[in-house]
């Protein structure tokens, strides 16, 4: 799956998780913090992403990785990198 296809699927999952983002401009440079994603919304997004890309894409692993990055963490770019990497396995 191409990165652009992954991004399109993720964008849909984000909007299903948070309907107030229906009209929001979600780009690869967006951060989940600015999109208003707290830890609970990330769980729901994780469930949706697992069902899209397979059980191997465990969002907990990405959340753990991003938590170490401080203010630089939880970006869309990093999220897409993670899915690309894990979904290939």
């Amino acid at each position: 799956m191409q990165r652009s296809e992954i991004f399109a699927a993720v964008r849909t999952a984000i909007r299903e998780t948070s309907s107030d983002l229906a009209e929001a401009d979600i780009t690869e440079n967006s951060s989940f913090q600015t999109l208003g994603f707290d830890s609970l919304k990330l769980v729901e997004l994780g469930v949706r992403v697992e069902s899209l890309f397979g059980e191997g894409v465990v969002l907990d692993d990405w959340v753990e990785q991003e938590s170490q990055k401080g203010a630089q963490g939880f970006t869309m770019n990093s999220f897409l990198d993670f899915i690309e990497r894990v979904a290939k396995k």
Partner: protein
Amino acid sequence: MSKYKAQVLSSYIYGTDVGPHHSMGKRNRWFHGFVASLIEQGSGLQEVEVGFRQLGRTPAEVSAAYAECKARGVELAICAGTDSAIRWSRACPDIPTLYFGAHPENNGLELTRQSNVAGVRLHLPLVWSFENFSLLKALMPKLRAVYVPVNLLSEFAFPNVRAAYAQHRRESTDFWIPGTSSWVGHRSVQFLCDRMGCRYFEGPYESVDQLVGELGKIDGPQDCAFIGFNDTVLMEDAANRLLAWSGKANAALFWVNNWPIIASGGVADFSSHFEQVGRILGKQAMALLRGKKSPQEIGFAADPGQKLSLNLRRCAELSLHVSPEVRERFDAVQE
């Protein structure tokens, strides 16, 4: 806008600095299963707003939590674990409550008769199945005794169990109560040990120092299995000290329903399959909230399964040979 308000209440909600068990609820993925179930039913956390709260220990704290839930219009409480469920059910006679938890001797089942309580009654995979229990011997062929610490200050030390321990203390100064005693609390574990050909000891403790001190008096702990239940994580620092002691003493630590502790230095964890438990809770929650069913109509679902996990690195440190047949019995193996 959320349509329904749900509140998770548990004794097992922590900050990140308490020890490996802080991530227990996250790692066992019960909430993940719960949310997956909501989504399957066309719902999600936008419709069901979920809050998490560590339930206080005193009756006043629990009553305050109940009053706050009433004031906020909480329509569903979810009690993760027996300890919180026992205290919550005393204070809350009306908010529909889903409970998932267990006790080795089925103590505490009175709460299942309370009209506002339903949920999932869990097994304890290590001690409710000889097939699982015998894995201790398969991993430790020289196993001669099993030790179980019991936290006297948690709800798991039920009144009948406390009374039995008090009788033991009147007769003996020995800290470790042998399984053959009339005053042992987890009688069923004695039978399992008897069948497996080893001895059983139970250690009711009131402080971490007392527990660690008495563990230090055991001769040859290398040929014994030490089993933690989650009552021990309810005493501050007890799980960490037990883990540290087992590391220093080259002792084999096992746990029931808490893989993060075992991943940090124990041998094996025997858990319920919490993700599947969460899925059942999700269905029950929607039946209560959307379906307007009563908790009594929902009742209690059976434990949906188990997840056994093995820490191979710790096995190697303790020179425990893990045969392919034994390894295969575990659902998850940490290299």
